[in-house]
């Protein structure tokens, strides 16, 4: 069985600084992978590399067996990779409905503008902003904008969906709603990679955990195991803390 997403020794450098360093990773269809790591670890860069926004400077990326390392980002989107942005980026002066329709029209296989608009209305309902379809996107509150981002991505009928810090700025009730929605999306057959720094959130929905630190992959496995990995604790809390909490050597 071919993996859905396969990264082979992928690196991405910016003027000598290695944001991503030799990362190899395999994601199978149906997984919900939590991608975690301290600030600046390279999580968003990794998403940018896979989606083609910031192509890899070394290594290869495969989607469904197909090499997409050098493919243009709009083509990768059409091949089934969608992502949400940390800082939400709608088309401000277009309506909510039009925003979602764009996803359907340009990647989601909608046959016409009318078809795309119809699908947009359905999806808006699904994510809970169904009564806002005629509002200009720039007027939405943050929580609703996040829903819009999700709806836009879903309109693309993705195989693989990157959720980049979807919970930033949300209150606990809103986060719970978001998690329920993510589960539903996963159940509908979309493979999800969640970038999140709220541990409890990530642990509650991920089937697998991957940890990045200084651009390198330092842990990859079942959530319960990864959280107990000393290297992970070190990455988040620093060497001294880990050693101190271990107490005098036994």
């Amino acid at each position, binding site marked *: 069985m071919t993996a859905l997403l396969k990264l082979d020794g992928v690196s991405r450098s910016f003027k000598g600084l290695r944001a991503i360093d030799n990362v190899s990773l395999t994601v199978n269809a149906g997984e919900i992978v939590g991608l975690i790591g301290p600030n600046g670890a390279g999580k968003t860069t990794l998403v940018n590399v896979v989606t083609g926004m910031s192509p890899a400077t070394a290594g290869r990326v495969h989607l469904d067996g197909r090499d997409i390392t050098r493919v243009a980002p*709009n083509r990768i989107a059409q091949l089934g990779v969608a992502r949400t*942005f940390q800082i939400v*980026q*709608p*088309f*401000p002066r277009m309506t909510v409905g039009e925003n979602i329709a*764009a996803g359907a029209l340009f990647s989601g296989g909608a046959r016409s503008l009318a078809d795309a608009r119809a699908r947009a209305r359905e999806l808006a309902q699904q994510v809970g902003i169904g009564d806002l379809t005629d509002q200009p996107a720039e007027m939405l509150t943050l929580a609703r904008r996040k829903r819009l981002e999700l709806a836009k991505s879903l309109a693309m009928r993705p195989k693989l969906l990157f959720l980049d810090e979807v919970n930033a700025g949300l209150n606990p009730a809103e986060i719970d709603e978001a998690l329920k929605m993510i589960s539903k999306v996963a159940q509908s057959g979309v493979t999800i990679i969640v970038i999140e720094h709220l541990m409890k959130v990530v642990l509650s929905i991920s089937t697998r955990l991957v940890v990045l630190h200084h651009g390198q992959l330092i842990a990859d496995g079942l959530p319960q195991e990864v959280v107990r990995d000393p290297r992970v604790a070190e990455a988040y809390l620093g060497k001294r803390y880990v050693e101190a909490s271990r107490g005098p050597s036994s």
Partner: protein
Amino acid sequence: MRTAIILVIGAALFAALLLLGSNYAIRFATIFAMYATLALSWNFIGGLAGYPSFATAAFFGLGSYASAILQSSGIPMLMAWPIGGLFTAVFAAVIGLAILHLKGHYFAIASLALVEFLRELVNINDQLTGGGMGLNLPVAHAGVTQQALFFLAAMLAVTIVTLLAAVVVSRRKIGFALRCIQQNEDAAIMLGVNARWYKAAAFTLSALFPGVAGGIYASWVHYIDPSDVFDILLSVKPLVMVLLGGLGTLFGPVIGAAVFLVLEEAVWRSFLTVHAAVLGLLIVALVLFLPNGLMAIGRRRRRASQA
């Protein structure tokens, strides 16, 4: 719909103007048709896609010279015009590859430089183009009024075709894509929009019709020279007309062209020498007080009354 009412009134005035039959009226109408075409064309790249192009004069001039040179090689006028237009469109598509990845100011300057570059190039290659001495075009053997009406019809035909193209673009995927690109190009790409292709298409459209119009213009005035057809004002005026009428709207360019030209005629008659200064003042006032154009005035009032 407000727009429909304005257009019906406009068309009625237009017809009345023609019925007057005076050559002055016909001439004015022809210029209107020409500028309406230029404004509508600019709207594809400047209004819809949001790329501030100053290249309209380059395309107009190129079309003028291409068609004039073709005619002096024996090709009949009615064939030279579309071929000149096509040549200009291909030129735009090729140049687009080099400059459409630029944003904002850089793109604007590149498009501006295009005008200057082509003008000087035409000036230098005087063997082919007559250089600074200009190029003469064959005069038809027909009455003055007949000729005037003929060229009006030709210009108007191009305007109508351009308008139709604008309608089609606005209704279909390409219009939608351009609007997405204009509001957030990166997000659009991530959604699957092939921005490069759509921008190139918009740029080519913004060149095709001015190219043809340039050819018709050359035949109409029977004589062209580089500073005449590669005049930067031919880039700026259509732009201002679109701003006046409403950026990115469908009929805004046409309405803006009409209002602008009427204003210009009025000013020209009273302020001959300071004509350019008044144009400058108009532009400044427009940008400062009416950035969304005339169409927005009603909208603002309506929204205020609903509040």
